[in-house]
């Protein structure tokens, strides 16, 4: 399990400072923040804009453009489940339904923080072993309902 720190303005400033002189620094900065805290807090927008000499609107525009960046902590573990064509052909939608019916886990829900957050992803590049998923960055191939049960139970434990 990847433990994330609580938001910390000082640490955030340091992460921004360390990267601001790179060419095209904004994405590396946002990734560093999300790596450390699990999300990009709104409080980071102004200092990033200041450091890169761009408007707050531009920073906000970039943060919200990319699917990766969360605006709130994920809470527990994050399971990304692939729902692209290759995984569709091997029944990923039935697995999504299984998560909902057997574990009450809805994909991409934005409210509430639970022990396991399930997010849609379109392709993990593991299409010969579909259905595919990724749990906190660790790839899972040949995904089954039984494997999902184990993941959900472990996250709750």
């Amino acid at each position, binding site marked *: 399990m990847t433990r994330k720190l609580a938001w910390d303005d000082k640490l955030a400033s340091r992460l921004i400072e360390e990267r601001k002189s790179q060419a095209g620094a904004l994405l590396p900065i946002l990734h560093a923040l999300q790596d450390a805290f699990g999300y990009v807090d709104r409080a980071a927008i102004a200092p990033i804009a200041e450091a890169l000499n761009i408007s707050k609107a531009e920073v906000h525009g970039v943060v919200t453009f990319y699917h990766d960046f969360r605006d709130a902590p994920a809470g527990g573990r994050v399971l990304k489940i692939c729902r692209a*064509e290759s995984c569709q052909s091997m029944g990923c939608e039935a697995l999504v339904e299984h998560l909902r019916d057997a574990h009450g886990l809805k994909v991409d829900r934005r409210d509430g923080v639970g022990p396991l957050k399930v997010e849609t992803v379109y392709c993990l590049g593991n299409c010969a072993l579909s259905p595919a998923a990724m749990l906190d960055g660790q790839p899972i*191939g040949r995904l089954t309902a039984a494997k999902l049960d184990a993941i959900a139970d472990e996250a709750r434990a």
Partner: protein
Amino acid sequence: MSVKIYVPGDSAALSVGADAVAEAIQREARKRRLDVAIVRNGSRGLFWLEPLVEVETAEGRFAYGPIEAGEIASLFDARFLSGRAHPKAQGRIEDHPYLKSQQRLLFARCGIIDPLSLDEYRAHGGLKGLERALASGSKTIIEDVIASGLRGRGGAGFPAGIKWRTVAATSADQKYIVCNADEGDSGTFADRMIMEGDPFVLIEGMTIAALAVGATKGFVYIRSEYPHAFAKFDAALAVARQGGLLGRSVLGSSHAFDIETRLGAGAYICGEETSLLDSLEGKRGQVRFKPPLPAVSGLFGKPTVVNNVLTLASTPWILAHGARTYADYGMGRSRGTQAFQLAGNVKRGGLVELAFGATIRSLIKDFGGGTATGRKIRAVQVGGPLGAYFPDSLLDTPLDYEAMLAAKGMLGHGGIVVFDDSVDLSRQARFAFEFCAYESCGKCTPCRIGSVRGAETIDKIIAGKDSEKNIALVRDLCTVMTDGSLCALGGLTALPVISALDHFSEDFAPRPSRIAAE
């Protein structure tokens, strides 16, 4: 002397327990007081056999797969260290028909060497292309790449050498090589395999491109869904700098070149080259108007080569073996080999590198062995989410750029996704629009609005509302999106939709009978 055992560190192998297998082998060997050295190689691309364990013997490398950690003791009992029989034994891996009937040029080393050993890379033919490039100079490199017929493997199929020539001819104080490793198409994993299994070939290819056009800096834009590829490639860059392959003096020459990795952030559109450039610059990944071409005004406004991983990684072979030898493979205007990727509902999914011109059927039957579910094949999507769905009657279409276009499809990045007869093509057509809406950068109206309207209209068709009228509307919408979109996302979404309508019209018929049948 210790026995060499290979357990892939490729993320597909990891996804089915390769780490646990490697640990179990280490543990069991210690228990039995046997001296083994475990190498974490890339994958051979025989994914249905992963984790595929190989043992090096005097008679060659013997393979066992798919192996679970719980089977390790039985492997030792069967004396697998001498390549002996076991229920999971696959024999000498080089003799495996899946590999033996391929033409592996680009993937010649993938799954064979330790991906982070520059010595092994060199021992298996690496760096010969770069050495030739250093000796022959820019003009000859570009002539060779043009003569090889190499076309962009990302999907667009633009001649690589022509792009390089434009960048070389544009004068500027700074030029860039940008590698597009934003491999977002469902059904594709070849770029990932190269970055994880033979990263130096990409570094070598980018360096050759740099010499050809006069660039000193390169970026590799890797999608965030590939954390292992990112880490492996970064580690390879450090080894390459240490080994004098990158830095102020490339292999002791007067040329300077270095590469930096950058992580994408989950936007499919950043696989489009101009979106990728904007993303690298720290902006929203929105598509740029062309002209100017990136070759003239690309990253930070400088002349930039933007090529896919496989395009760049093909150039070392071309330089080392000669443009003519490369061009001898293939058909028509598609020269060389293509890394086909067999995926989805297929028994033996994996990487199949073959000369252009193989048929879809031969790939999914001869290599793939039919569906994983054992049911009848109903549709095959070629070329990712923007590729056409082919019915059985079109499976004899040869896989080359022009033949695929003629069949109203596209080759794309070479992904082939198989569906059995449980597929509902009206759902797949809806998904094509939905995906386009989800991933649209929003810059042009046909893509941004058209995709949403398309999904809504297909919903009406599925619900049986004014079918005929709405199908006509979808076709009309597809024409607008094809003709009016700024880039391939909006421009090619029509391919899966129209192919579904043309070849599987029964799935769009008014529903009552089908609902009753379900």
